[in-house]
């Protein structure tokens, strides 16, 4: 804890099934209602009962962009947590544990061990979850929070289960609070209050809400960690918002079903993780070929293959870049945090509607499953909607019935509709007005086979090379100057002239790099930061300008092989001077970047791989 600002981190560790989520949620509500900012990361295993869970909640009086470097309070729900994590605690910190079941280790000097005799405090209550509520009382005493606030939240949390359960929980929380008052020293800084109340969400909530705001009416998915939260939000809110939500037999079905709904006019979206996205890839290309706008979300987890299902990584970039055979147009975007993800989805829907192609959002476990505070006024659920060139009404009494002369022409008949409507008209922009099925006078076939302007398959006659070339070029023309449709990346931190190092990150590393840059600048090391969000289109010129003016460039990414670095080189020929990479399943902490910058400046290495201290 620094003295000038409130910056405090609590960790709660235990086994799956020990009920970490409930105290986590109670604390989160208390913090955000007081106007504090929250960034929480839950490290967990792919197991429903047992395993080890370690929830880190960082609370600040200013916006907070990562889960931080250090802990102030450790809550041990089992011996394992004590054994694994006591070593993380430094002078002035507190460790709360059930002294009936947990033997404390040997802490560093200045660590306050705070044993709670749970059986005595709870009158030998046999409910194993009761220790969590006692701990909550103790935590809030230590943060100088009035007990009434905890009582109100517990009442809200348990009122569905009846007054008896409420009374029991309030009683044991009170016991923990009073016991702490009698035996433990509170923290020097009390929990601030009076800030503007915040809202709380996960990145998956934000992605789903972005979809709802964009007007998604069809969402389908196959459950896969860490993307399932999007499905859960959609399912929970579907009826109220008029969104159709389907759980499908596999991700191949998901992608194709989303395309079917999109073709008839819905804004349609689906989310998965890397393995599921692999199954979707053929459909991605089919949406591009049929020119159907649809949004796919890949929430990355550590690969390859089934990989580490509950751990984070930025390892799917090349899979996404290479998803589906052939050359085709699509957008690829990697939002930098939950709020950015929320804003990105409607923006992407407008783009895919205008350019009639698929769009892919790259998230990861860190963003999607993290829990964050958000300013409620920043959640604008009425974004502008641009559906592009869409024909939804019949016009001029057009008919779908071919005339006698059209029929007499046989092969090569241009446009059965009497108005000569061509779904894939070879326009100057490459964008052809899209008629929705059901509109009279515009009947046409869309095809995954190459087709002519009227939708007729090129291979149905003979494979006409000139028609093929025309249609490839028509689709490609849609993306001529496409970078103009999105914001270029902007340099943050020290000015280009001063910076000794320019850090380049993409997607979810934004929050941790941002803090590392602030720390380094404060310590007199001039560093700046170029966060990349749009992968396709890539603002190559803007990036080249930064590289041209940088003294030393370092790419930060959460993978082993430097996937973004390789992509950047392939698109621009630019190569970075150094790299900070992490591929152990856990996200970067700010000091990992700070240490990396120092090492790279000292010239001891070109690729810095930080050591992960928190082992879960």
């Amino acid at each position: 804890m620094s003295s000038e600002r409130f910056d405090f981190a609590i960790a709660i560790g235990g086994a799956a099934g020990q009920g970490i989520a409930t105290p986590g949620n109670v604390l989160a509500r208390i913090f955000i209602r007081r106007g504090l900012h929250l960034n929480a990361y839950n490290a967990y295993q792919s197991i429903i009962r047992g395993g080890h869970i370690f929830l880190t909640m960082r609370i600040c009086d200013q916006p907070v962009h990562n889960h931080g470097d250090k802990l102030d309070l450790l809550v041990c729900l089992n011996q394992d947590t004590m054994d694994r994590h006591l070593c993380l605690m430094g002078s002035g910190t507190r460790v709360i544990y059930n002294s009936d079941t947990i033997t404390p280790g040997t802490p560093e000097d200045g660590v306050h061990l705070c044993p709670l005799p749970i059986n005595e405090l709870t009158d030998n209550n046999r409910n194993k979850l009761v220790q969590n509520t006692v701990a909550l009382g103790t935590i809030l005493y230590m943060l100088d929070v009035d007990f009434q606030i905890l009582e109100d939240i517990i009442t809200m949390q348990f009122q569905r289960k009846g007054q008896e359960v409420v009374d029991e929980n309030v009683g044991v929380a009170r016991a923990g609070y009073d016991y702490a008052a009698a035996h433990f020293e509170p923290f020097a800084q009390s929990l601030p209050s009076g800030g503007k109340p915040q809202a709380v969400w996960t990145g998956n909530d934000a992605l789903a809400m972005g979809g709802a705001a964009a007007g998604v009416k069809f969402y389908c998915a196959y459950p896969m960690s860490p993307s399932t939260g999007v499905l859960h939000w959609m399912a929970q809110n579907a009826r109220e918002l008029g969104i159709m939500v389907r759980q499908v037999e596999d991700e191949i079905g998901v992608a194709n079903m989303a395309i079917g709904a999109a073709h008839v006019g819905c804004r349609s979206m689906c989310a998965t993780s890397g393995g599921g996205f692999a199954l979707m890839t053929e459909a991605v290309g089919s949406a591009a070929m049929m020119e159907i706008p649809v949004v796919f979300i890949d929430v990355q987890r550590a690969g390859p293959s089934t990989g580490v299902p509950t751990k984070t990584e930025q390892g799917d970039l090349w899979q996404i870049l290479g998803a589906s055979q052939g050359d085709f147009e699509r957008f690829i975007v990697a939002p930098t945090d939950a709020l950015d993800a929320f804003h990105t989805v409607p923006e992407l829907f407008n783009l895919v509607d205008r350019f009639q192609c698929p769009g892919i959002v790259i998230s990861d476990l860190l963003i999607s499953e993290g829990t964050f505070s958000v300013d409620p006024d920043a959640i604008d659920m009425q974004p502008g909607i641009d559906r592009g060139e869409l024909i939804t009404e019949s016009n001029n009494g057009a008919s779908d019935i071919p005339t006698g002369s059209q029929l007499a022409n046989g092969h090569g008949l241009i446009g059965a509709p009497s108005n000569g409507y061509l779904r894939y008209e070879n326009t100057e922009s490459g964008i052809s007005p899209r008629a929705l099925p059901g509109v009279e006078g515009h009947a046409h076939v869309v095809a995954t086979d190459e087709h002519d302007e009227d939708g007729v398959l090129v291979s149905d006659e003979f494979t006409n090379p000139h028609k093929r070339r025309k249609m490839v070029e028509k689709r490609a023309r849609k993306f001529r100057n496409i970078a103009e449709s999105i914001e270029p990346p902007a340099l943050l931190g020290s000015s280009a002239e001063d910076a000794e190092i320019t850090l380049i990150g993409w997607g979810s590393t934004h929050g941790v790099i941002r803090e590392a840059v602030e720390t380094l600048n404060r310590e007199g090391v001039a560093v700046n930061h170029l966060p990349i969000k749009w992968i396709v289109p890539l603002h190559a010129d803007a990036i080249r300008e930064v590289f041209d003016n940088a003294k030393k460039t370092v790419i930060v990414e959460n993978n082993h092989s430097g996937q973004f670095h390789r992509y950047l080189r392939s698109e621009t020929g630019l190569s970075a001077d150094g790299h900070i990479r992490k591929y152990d399943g856990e996200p970067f902490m700010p000091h990992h970047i700070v240490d990396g910058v120092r090492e790279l400046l000292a010239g001891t290495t070109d690729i810095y791989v930080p050591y992960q201290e928190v082992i879960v």
Partner: protein
Amino acid sequence: MSVETLPREEVEAKPVAPLKAKDFKGKVDPDWCPGCGDFGVLSSLQRACVNLGLRPHEILTISGIGCSSNFPGFFNSYGMHTLHGRALAVATGAQMANHELTVFVTGGDGDGYGIGGNHFTHTARRNVDLTYIVMDNQIYGLTTGQVSPTSSIDMRTKSTPFGSVEAPINPITAAIMNGATFVARAFSGDARHLTGLIEQAVQHRGFALIDVFSPCVTFNKDNDYPFFKQRVKKLEDEGHDPGDWKAACEKAMIWGDEIYTGLFFQKKGAPTLGDQEPVLDEGGAIARRELGITVEQSDRIIKRMM
């Protein structure tokens, strides 16, 4: 928008002339081999659409990949020629998003029972309101003659030069077991019978399968027109009760000197997927609704987050 629109009333005021089968002719003529069974399916579907009073823009015909999956290009309606095996998944999305369309899915045995088998199972159990016409020729034609999921044991093909050792799938019993509510079989050599079955299938609310013997004259010399002509017997002529699933399965298991065609099984009144989707209770097709959410809905969502 580049196309001017007229007020709806003027469009609707125009008299609607009865259509002829040729009005459902597509932009190009079929590229099937002369004598292909699929011609009979195409003409039967065109005739059924005339008899049902459907118009091209009210229909969405969706296929996968294969000879028979070229179907939408030869038929005048909205069409989607999608990926191999995925037609039913695409069709489910399209039908649920705009249930006002009449949805046909057309394809072959490899497309539907092989690579698309998973979607076949789940579309049947969901009872999606569409008509699935499988042109079953018991061979892979477009890849020039390999064994298919419905090829008979011992059948010699390019990929089974010494005879297939795998038992074929029975599409009729499979569909019934998976929960399909309308299961029929036809022979493309009997267009009148097939036309009638298609009309019934469209009028049926729910997932309707018509497995059509549609001989491949080029690559399947075992199951040709004479093979079926000698064997097919109509269930209707035997007083079969389509409400009796056990009798339907018994008839469907018969494969020898006699092979049954007709309506094996129908469960009337079963709710379709759309019937059970509360989002469709009112407001018409979701594809045609206004986008976005209201300020009140937004406020409720954000309040729950605080």
